Each structure stands twice: as structure tokens, then as C-alpha cells.
């Protein structure tokens, strides 16, 4: 797949585009990164960038304390714009 090893700069740059899709995916409830990746059909390592960027700027947050098979779940915080 051509997108397997995209430049970090390129992946990070797409966070604003991917935001709507990720937030939409999380409308149904909290998800782990592999779950988000399959929901939006994107590679998990790219989803890590988007989720962590969105977490940093307050769109989503992890559910503290518990992991599912070693993965944290992330949920919407209510920030919309």
C-alpha cells in the first residue's frame, strides 16, 4: 500500500481532515486505536498521530485506568470546533 510509510509531516497535516471522521466514529462510543483505524479505514500508526493530536487539543480523551487487551479507549470530550 502506497500510504504505508507516509512522511510524518504529511500524516500530521491531515489531522484536521481526519478529525470529522474520527469524531463521527466515536459517536457510537469509545474505541481503541485499532478499532478507530478499522472504522475509518486508515493505518493504525497514522491514527495514533491523529488521535494524539486531537487528544492534545481537547477533542477526545482516554478512558483512564483501564485497557482492553493493552489498548486504551478514547472518547469524545464535547469539543466541536
Amino acid at each position, binding site marked *: 500500500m*502506497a*500510504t504505508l*510509510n*507516509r*512522511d*510524518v*509531516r*504529511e500524516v*500530521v*497535516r*491531515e*489531522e*484536521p*481532515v481526519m*478529525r*470529522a471522521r474520527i469524531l463521527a466514529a466515536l459517536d457510537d462510543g469509545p474505541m*481503541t*486505536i*485499532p478499532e478507530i*483505524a478499522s472504522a475509518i479505514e486508515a493505518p*493504525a*500508526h497514522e*491514527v*495514533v*498521530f491523529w*488521535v*494524539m*493530536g486531537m*487528544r*492534545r*487539543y*481537547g477533542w477526545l*480523551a*482516554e478512558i483512564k485506568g483501564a*485497557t482492553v487487551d*493493552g*489498548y*486504551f479507549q478514547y472518547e469524545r470530550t464535547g469539543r466541536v*470546533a
Partner: protein
Amino acid sequence: MTLVTRDDPGTSAGGACHVPDATSRYDVLVVGSGIGGMESALKLGDMGYKVLLVEKEASVGGKMILLSKVFPTLDCASCISTPKMAATIHHPNITALTYSQVDGIRRSADGRFHASVTRKARYVDETSCTGCALCETACTVAVPDQFNADLVARRAAYIAFPQAVPKKAVIDRAGSSPCSYACPAGIQAHGYVSLIRSGEYEKAYRLVLEATPLVGTLGRACYAPCEAECTRGSLEGTLPIRRLKRFVADAHDPDRDGSGIEVAPPNGRHVAIVGSGPTGLTAAWQLARNGYAVKIFEAAPVAGGFLRLAIPSYRLPEAVVERDIDNVRAIGVEIVTHTRINDLAALKADGFDAVLVATGTHRSTGLGVPGEDRLGVLGGTDFLRRVKLGRPMGLAGKRVVVVGGGNVAMDAARTARRLGASSVTVAYRRGRDEMPAHHVESADAEREGVEFSLQVAPLEVLGDADGAVSGLRCARMHLGEPDASGRRRPEPIPGSELVLPCELIVSAIGMTGDPGAFVRQVAADARGLLAADPVSGQTALPYVFAAGDAVHGPTDITRAVGEGRRAAHMIDRWLTGGSLDGFDDRLAVVDKAAVIARQKAFAVRAATADGTTLVTAPTDFAEVEAPMTEAEAHEAAGRCLDCAVCSECRECVAACPVDGCIDLHARDQHEEVEVGAVVVSTGFKLFAADLKPEYGFGTFKNVITGMQMDRLLAPTRPFNTILRPGDGKVPERIAYVLCTGSRDETVGNPLCSRFCCMYSIKQNQLLMGALPLADVTVHYMDIRAPGKRYDEFYEGAKSMGATYIKGRVAEITETPEGNLILHYEDIENGGAITQAEYDLVVLAVGVQPNRDAEQLFEVEELALDEWRYVDEPDEDLNPGQTSIPGVFVAGAASGAKDIADSILHAGAAVAQVAAHLETAKADAEMLDAVRKAMVPA
């Protein structure tokens, strides 16, 4: 491709040229504010010396502040460095310039140094920024965060890191984005694209409104010079920037969204604008929002100039223009039509403080051949105007010849097709490639069935006795040498005539101005173009400004809009007593090659489909280009490369609570300083791990560097906890590969990097504390723990359960789950090549010299050692002394050092700096005494 020229400092104003103040003097210049630089500056300051500290990043602190904890005490790096950072900034004897760089240092004959320092524009006023980070939250551009070792995004507007000192934001701008720079209308193309990418369509619409009310119009009829410059054009294709603008214009619903226009309170001044084309409308818009009372006088029955009188509706529907003009009316601009102005002085007498003449070029140039006065010969603009104003003109069954190769010719030809002409032929004297019409226009015309008769020039209009046209006699041409315009000059081929039979001839070979009755007040040239100052647009009558096509001849809408903005700016300056300049303060355009070079690779995306539907024989004036869907627009905007990093979307300006704190007009400032000594404390670079391809860094997502692990371990970490970057999993089996890029001739570095063993051991301990279930294995060559309490620290990690395996790792491979298989030599257990699987691998990258140090000195070269670290010619007795007298090196700029050794080394350098300054002072005093003694009594 058009070459974009760099900003000419002579014409770009707006404070770009900073006149340096008189040279300021300091005792010492310290370059770099890592631990070595801070220690040097603090100690020199304590001794009473005046220190100038220059740091290229937005905060002092260097690399130490980014660490989790420090070995062997496991002190929190932040806790022990922030007090030092604050002390540095607040020291009464230290002037600390962050986000600044030393451009060059020259030693003068008296042994003192002269340095040029650039204070890079932060675009944020340091004194009024409160560090609240609202700008960062609002920013629409995401870039990798260098302070988090690229593990997470930051924004173009950002505060370096949570413990930054000073805690002030900065806006990351590499220049002007090519698209925005190319826009003659001054629209922030990059800005609205980045807003669309964020789903902020209404904000994007309003950003365009900042420049012009004609959003929908430009979204359709602009020839998009931005797209010609789009860096993405060299990849799979340019962004559809124009259509994105149309998308936001279409998405804007005034009833739902409101006008969103802020208007300053009336300032009591009145401006009259003659002509309601794009120049006049834009000028009116800008002036009215600035508090002026504006009235537009339009001779035609409708407002809009060419937008309503020339551009065919299939390209630009009337309703779109009307909606845009409503914007202007909505802020109180009065537009009177059917009113031709003959006397500009009368307007002044009527109470207008200034007048703008923006009458355009509506008069078609004649063919200049016999018979052109026949019925059936029409000027291009006249033809289009008749159609646009709805005067019936059935062309059913008629043959039409359009003479000319410009956009008006194409518009006329395509219009004629729609009116039912049986054939439409464009006659043009040069070839297809030389046609001035936009290539899309000529291509679309052809697709609609327009024929082209190229390299022909009219000789005579043929006709019948009643005066009706029957044909156009033409000469065939060939192309000779290039003329002044660079195009090859057409020359008739003797005896090569032909006749194009037709019933209607449209002459679209040029347009001229029509200065009308006020030509006695404002001079015009032979083409009817008004005389005005090329920069300000001011005419011989000081209160009269002229702008747009009426001055420059026919251009296009986008230039006309830009002319309107310029005219409004100049009129405002003139009426408020300012000098007539300062309109264009764009930053220099970024180098597209540099933009491309920022990325190692690009994923080629699907180019956006153009959305135009054309038929061979169009019969109506319905719009030919379909709108974009939201999904298309969102996706297309997502292809933007953020060439200038900051998109100038101005969201930060809107979010900042302090008025005027964020100022995108700020510019770099240059200072000259004179100092008695220099401390080079430029630190080191970390080895670029991808230079060891066998370890897969950059390819295997769960292979990270030691610095990345330090960030993951720090409480201000990029993720919510220690997770592997490949999929966000909490790692259970973690391996370290020591000596990555050190003790390794294959990468040209035979040296040991000195602290990688120790930081790895530190991380081992921290990992075992944070992830009690995790296994930690270290693949090492020799564990180098040669410092106070270092070996004890190593023993501590072993007793906590970390495993240390001697032997170099040959290769790392990846499993489909993203796990990593290390192929290594297990030296102590027989030396066989063994494999082990881990889910996270940390490469303990070593040190590389920071080549910045080499660039600092002009004339005299700063000697480097054989590994390109700053050389210390007498390290045994004078550590920190360099090859240049008065220049000292502190910390890792002279070779790998850990924190404690950097502190000691800085201390050593400082003692010698002080000695140097004292000697220089004593010498100067002695010289002074000698001079005094020589003065005769």
C-alpha cells in the same frame, strides 16, 4: 510555470525594513541556551558582566528540559532545569533573546567582536502575550512537534512546551505560501483552504470577504493564478483552489450565517467611486468597512461592470454577481446606476473627500480594415453586453467569425454558439499556443464546437450592397522573429488569401478605456488609459485616484479586485494623512523546492475531478461547471502542503484575547552588537536513526529513538501514557539497541557518544517502574557508566530486572502485527546469531556535531577537530578555549557530554572568558594611561 520573484525590499513596505539601532555593547555573547549556555550566562552575569544570550528556539532550556528524568539521581529534568531557565531570563545582567539567531561574528583588530543578530519575528508581542495558548488551540495548521521528537502534532501557532521560558507563543511562518503570494487580489488562499480542511466553511468564506465582497464571482470567473503556483502542482496536480472558494461561497447562507461583516463606526468622510466593476466594488467594500461613506456611480443600467456586462452567464450567473454585490450594499454603500460622471470636480464640490475612477475598458478596438463599418460587424464587448443585457439577438443559422484570441474572443464565440449560430470560427493571427486566452477557455470553446482558423489576419470585411456582411477576407500568416512581447511576430504570407464566409463578425482584438468627459481633468493616453501614479494611483488631481483596467488596460477580475484594495488603502492613507505606501507587505514567497524537500516522500493522491460538463452544441446559458460536494471540497483541501506553515487564516488573531498581540505584519529585526568575548554553546545533534536502515527506524513504526522514549516517559508526554506509536498499545517487551550511530565506522562515527548507555539505563529503571509487567532487554557493546554513582545506577537497573545482552544487533525485521524481531549476536553465550521478538524497540542514538557552530564566524575560521566538533587546542590546561582568541566553547559543542560534564565544562569556559575580559580591560587601561601620559601638559 511562472517564476515568482522574491519580495523587493524597495517596494515591500509595512515595517519590513528595520533600521538597526546603534550597535549595542555587551561583555559576552553566548550562543545557545542549553545547559552549557545557561550556566555560562548565569555565572558571567553573577560576576557582573553584561551578557547577551541568543537562542534560536522560542524558549531557553535546550534539550535537558525535554527529558523525563536525569541519571543517576532520577531527578525530574523539568524540576531542576526550570528554576535555572527562569533565573537566566530574569538575571539583571543577562539579555536573553529567544527565537533569534546569530548571523555572523567578526573579530576586529582590537580583539573585540561584532555580531549580527536576527530577532526572528514571533508575530506575537512578547510583552502582552499571557501564555494562555488560545491561539494554539484555534490554529488550523498541524505540524510535527519537534519538542516531542515528532511523536505528536503541534500547531503553527504554538508555545514551545508547557515549561517554556518565556512562556510566550510564536507563529511558525516560513514566508508567504505561493498560492496566497500569487493572488493579485490579496486573498489568503492558503488560509481559506486550511479552514475548509478543518470543516470551517463559513470562516473560510469570511476570510475571503476580508479581501473582497466578490467571493462567489471569483469562485467561478477567476483564472486562479494561485493554482498555477500551487506546490502540489508538481505532484499529482494543483489543488482546486478557485472551486474551493466557490464551494464556500455556495455554502454560505446569509439568512442562516448572517453577514458576518464588521464595520467600523462612520468616520465622517465620503468617497465617490466612478464605476461598479470589481475594482470599484472592492474599493467600496474596503472603504465602507473602514467607516467611510461610499457612493458608487455606474453609467450602465446594472452594477457590476464586466461581471454583468461581459462575462457570459454560463461562466458567471447573474444571481451570483448580485449576491456578491448585495454584500456591498449590505454595509451601506450606495450604488446608483444609469449615471455617467462627467465632472470629477463636481463630485468634490458635492462633498466627496476623494474620488476613485475605476471605469474599466469597455470600448472594443476596431478591426482597422475596409468594410468594418458594415452592419454585422460588432465589437466583442458590445456583442457580449447586448446579450448580457438581454437584447434579443437570434443567430440561428448564421455563421459567425470572431476575430481575436483573448478571453473576450472565447466568451464571444461560446456565446454565439449558444445563440444558435450554425458555425463559429475564431480567427487569430498567431497559433494556438500564442493565444492570450486562458487555456481552459480555448479548450472549452473547442469542446463546444467552436472552430479555430489560426494564423490568419483580416484584410477586408466583405459584404453585399445593403451593407450586410458576407465574409471576411484574410491573409495567411507565418510566425517570424519574437516581438517585444516575446511572442513570434505574425507576418503575412504573400498571395495566401482566404475568405471566411459569415454573416456576423465579432471584433475581439482589444479594448480601450473611455475616459469620457473628464479627460480634461485626468489625462489619458492614446488608448484612453488614465494617467495615475503607478504605486498610489493618485492622479494629477490629488483627491482623484484611478485604478484598475482604466489605468492599466484590460487585465482580469482578480487583478481588478487587487486594484480596488490598493486604491482603498491609498485613499485611506491619503485621507488620514499617511504616506502613500505600505500596501504590499507580503513575506517573501517560500521556495517550493524547499517545501518539497521537507518531506522524504509524498503519497500521491487522486487529483480532484474538474467538474465541468460541456456539450458540443450548447443551447442555453446554464452554468457549465458543477459545484463541489462537501466531501470533495474537504478531501481536496486536505491535499494542501501548508507551504508557509502558517496559513494566515487569522484564527489566532480572532482567538487572542489581547488586542494587537498577534501581528502578522511583524517582521524580523536585525541588530548589531559588539562584545568582548564569545561563548559557543550550540550543543549537539542526535544521530539520525534512519541512517541505519537495517534497524528500520522510520519504516517500522514501533522502532523509536531514545529521545522519543524520554518524551514518552516524561509527564508532559505526547501520548496519554507509554504507548507504542504503531498502534497505541501498552508495550510489554521492550528492547534497547545501544551504540546506534556511535562506535560505528559504517556511519562515519568512531566515537562513543558517552551518555546513551546512561540514558538507556535510566529509561530501563523508569520503564520498570511505570510498566511493572514489562520486560526490558538491552543489547549493548560495553556498558559505559563511568561517572559518580553511574555504575551503582547500572547495578540498580540490573537488580530491578533489566536484562543486558552483549553483542551488536545486526538487523531488525517486522512481523505483520508490528512486532519486531532482533537478529543479534549473543557474544557471552557462544556468539551465535540469535533472534528475539519485542513489541517496542528503542534505538539508543548517539551524538553528532551541531554544524551550526561552523557557520558562526566570518573571516576567521573556528577550528574543528577531526570529527567536526569545536576544537579545543589545549584541552589539557585550557578546556573550553578555541582556536580564536576570545572565543570559548561550553558544553557538548566540543564533543559529547552529559549534563554534569557540560556544567563543569561551561564553568571552565567561563573562568577563561572572565580572564580574557580582565586582560583586555587591563590592556585597554594601560593603553589609555599611555595615551594620557603622552598628552603634553
